[in-house]
């Protein structure tokens, strides 16, 4: 059976699944319950000078009848006294010595303030520190959170202060609310960070109530932009994790965060370079119990594929994240419809006709035979029909052989390589008139 044990920047945990800093990691009771359920680690809800929260803190985006496809919050860091949090962290560590317990910290941008909180935290026996340079709402207005994480110099400076006194690994949590996250990642590395975690939440307004015109979450009719997370942000997180992981100047481990809800999500983050995985929204939706399938599914997949440890998987997809100009222009695909599986909904036709390359032909329904067929000379292999088709395996994208060697745009403009003949394009005048 695949081994899920994880060593992340010197922090060990029985599995890579950590609770991300947030509402599920606010108290001893929660974290202990999570460890009992199987979580490998927890990043404590950010500790700092206690704040006062508003009532009504979360908003969400439903997709059809599915709840919380996207989620946001305007909740601030812990509203509990620092001493209470530290006492409970020490207690968790004492009772769960094999689990990873990491303290998320955020204080004002003063050297003494950071020195003091880091020292206090280390006294608890915590395994590591995560610097919250990412929260985009509330705390950023007070010069903390993403206000730090959006400026490379500030990031580097505070990491340096922390590292002056830190005796345990320091993880820097990055905000996605920047133009290019790699600049911030490099600054953290320069400051001496032991690891990175990303992404923090994305600036957002999730909805507006059309009765009161109050954005959600409404605080007496008003709201503030909040941090967006949940399944909807996973693609953004995957991209940013891969961008940091591929950066030659970033040589430290990366903890992946952002919409992880299933073992598949987790495996994808690992394949793009994540060394540990942090989950929050999925737990806020379904509770700690989800860790069972996160682990079970991941192990079953690894066993089926013959991966004995996460190290076998880590970064395996990174070499395949290329620049567009490196992609092979001679790799051609053609959509194929398995007419035995087709249920005749014509979604492929309407999508291709109105939204893509007009490469599907409709046939009369009353013939009793197929109602759609691919116009091969027009198909550009874009995938849209296969993406909208509601029947698994009905539309497949099949490679079209040509005997030409791979030729990228880079090769092509350099005068190297030769392009294979291509499908007719819907926008050529001849093609358009031939459809009349």
């Amino acid at each position, binding site marked *: 059976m695949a081994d899920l044990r994880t060593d992340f920047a010197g922090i060990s945990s029985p599995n890579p699944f950590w609770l991300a800093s947030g509402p599920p990691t606010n108290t001893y009771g929660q974290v202990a319950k999570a460890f009992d359920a199987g979580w490998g680690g927890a990043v404590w809800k950010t500790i700092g000078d206690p704040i006062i929260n508003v009532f009504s803190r979360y908003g969400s985006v439903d997709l*059809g*009848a*599915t709840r919380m496809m996207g989620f946001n919050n305007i909740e601030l860091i812990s509203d509990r006294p620092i001493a209470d949090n530290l006492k409970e962290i020490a207690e968790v560590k004492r009772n769960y010595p094999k689990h990873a317990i990491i303290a998320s910290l955020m204080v004002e941008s003063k050297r003494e303030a950071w020195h003091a909180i880091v020292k206090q935290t280390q006294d608890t026996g915590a395994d590591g520190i995560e610097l919250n340079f990412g929260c985009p709402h509330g705390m950023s207005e007070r010069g903390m959170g993403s206000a730090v994480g959006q400026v490379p110099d500030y990031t580097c400076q505070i990491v340096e202060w922390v590292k002056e006194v830190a005796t345990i690994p320091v993880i820097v949590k990055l905000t996605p609310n920047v133009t290019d996250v790699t600049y911030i990642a490099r600054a953290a590395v320069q400051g001496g960070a032991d690891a990175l975690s990303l992404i923090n939440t994305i600036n957002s307004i999730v909805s507006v109530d059309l009765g009161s015109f109050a954005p959600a979450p409404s605080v007496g009719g008003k709201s503030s932009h909040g941090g967006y997370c949940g399944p909807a942000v996973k693609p953004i997180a995957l991209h940013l994790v891969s961008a940091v992981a591929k950066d030659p100047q970033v040589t430290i481990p990366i903890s992946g965060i952002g919409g992880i809800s299933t073992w598949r999500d987790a495996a994808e983050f690992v394949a793009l370079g994540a060394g540990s995985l942090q989950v929050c929204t999925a737990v806020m939706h379904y509770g700690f119990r989800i860790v069972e399938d996160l682990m079970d599914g991941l192990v079953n997949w690894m066993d089926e594929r013959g991966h004995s440890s996460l190290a076998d998987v880590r970064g395996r997809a990174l070499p395949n994240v290329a620049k567009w100009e490196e992609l092979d222009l001679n790799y051609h695909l053609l959509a194929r419809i398995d007419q035995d599986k*087709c*249920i*005749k*909904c*014509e*979604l492929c*036709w*309407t999508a291709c006709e109105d939204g893509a390359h007009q490469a599907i032909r*409709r046939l009369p*329904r009353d013939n009793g035979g197929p109602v759609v067929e691919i116009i091969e000379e027009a198909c550009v292999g874009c995938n849209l029909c296969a993406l909208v088709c*509601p*029947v698994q395996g009905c539309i497949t994208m099949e490679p079209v052989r040509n005997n030409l060697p791979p030729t990228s745009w880079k090769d092509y403009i350099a005068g190297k390589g030769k392009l294979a003949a291509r499908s007719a394009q819907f926008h050529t005048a001849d093609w358009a008139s031939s459809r009349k």
Partner: protein
Amino acid sequence: MADLAENFADIAPPLTPDYALLEANKCLFCYDAPCTIACPTHIDVPAFIKKIATGNLRGSARVILEANPFGHSCARACPVEVLCEGACVLNGRDEQPIKIALLQRHATDYVLERKLKLFHVGKATGKKVAVVGAGPAGLACARDLRRWGHAVTVFEAKPQPGGLNTYGIAEYKLKADVALAEVQDILDLGVELKLGVTVDSLEPLLEKYDAVFVGVGLGKTKRLGIPGEDLDGVVDALTFIEHLKTHPYHETRVGKRVLVIGAGNTAIDAVTQAKRLGAEQSTIVYRRGEDDMPCYDYEYELAKRDGCSFRFHAAPKRVLGNGRVEGLEVETAQGHETIPCDMIIVAIGQGPRTDLAWPKDDPRVFVGGDCANGGAEIVNAAAEGVRAAKRIHDMLAVGGGNGR
């Protein structure tokens, strides 16, 4: 009494808002959707379902009722298993089809309960149309004629409008008050309704009106043509059902052992409702076999679930009794046999109208519904009424300059 009310409760209760949202989002939103093709009124089913998914219930009901003025009652009484739901592409994925009827009810109930007015009277054209029969065909025709500004007078022999919607649909599918509320919505467009008026000739109407639509339905239930059928305790199905639908449940007399002769959908309505009224035994007697039954399969299944019995290959020969019915003599493969009973309901179909004739070649006379199609569903009547309205409108516009 409580039990009887329960027995006649909606067989397909409305969806909760959460269920409706879930179901609406399951719809694939097919292009050139088979459900729409299958509907005789061609309601744009994916469009109305999408509107439910977006929370636009008013718009959803408008799509339904635009195509089918009887969208409320069709949502309850349509044989969707052989129409829209039977055509749903999800059947091809070996799944349950989308619950189109219940979603249609979800949207149309929304506007009916709130008395929202979705349609408006057109600018008066000065043209006058007479409609004979206030059933679904006639009123569907009247609704669209009013929208285009023509004056409409509807003549109805019964004391209430709605035709079989009011008097003849199984109580557990559609209740008279719902049927009447739906009708009122159409009448509110300024349709003049003359109740209790029997039209026995079109000639006076053709003198006074620019066009006449005939939607008078079928005639009486056919007679068995066997001895004893006039005995007390022998009743025709439509009379039985009409009594049930227009009186408190306990006022409709039902026997302990009821035989229903016939195996069409009306026979099923009769045998199930007799059972639900309290008959100990409620039995279909049919001269041919199970596979020959003209009723829909799901209606047969319903009767079986209701605990009704079936006697196949039993041809009625004589009603026995001394003043009151006591039994039915039938001929079977094994010879003659007497089935004891204390009530017989005859459901062997309606004959054509014999009390009103209409010219086939008068361009000002239009026909639709059961009297034209020989007897079909509400949705067919509504479709024919709507189509007739368009033809009437086109005809009236000739020379009148009232083209759409």
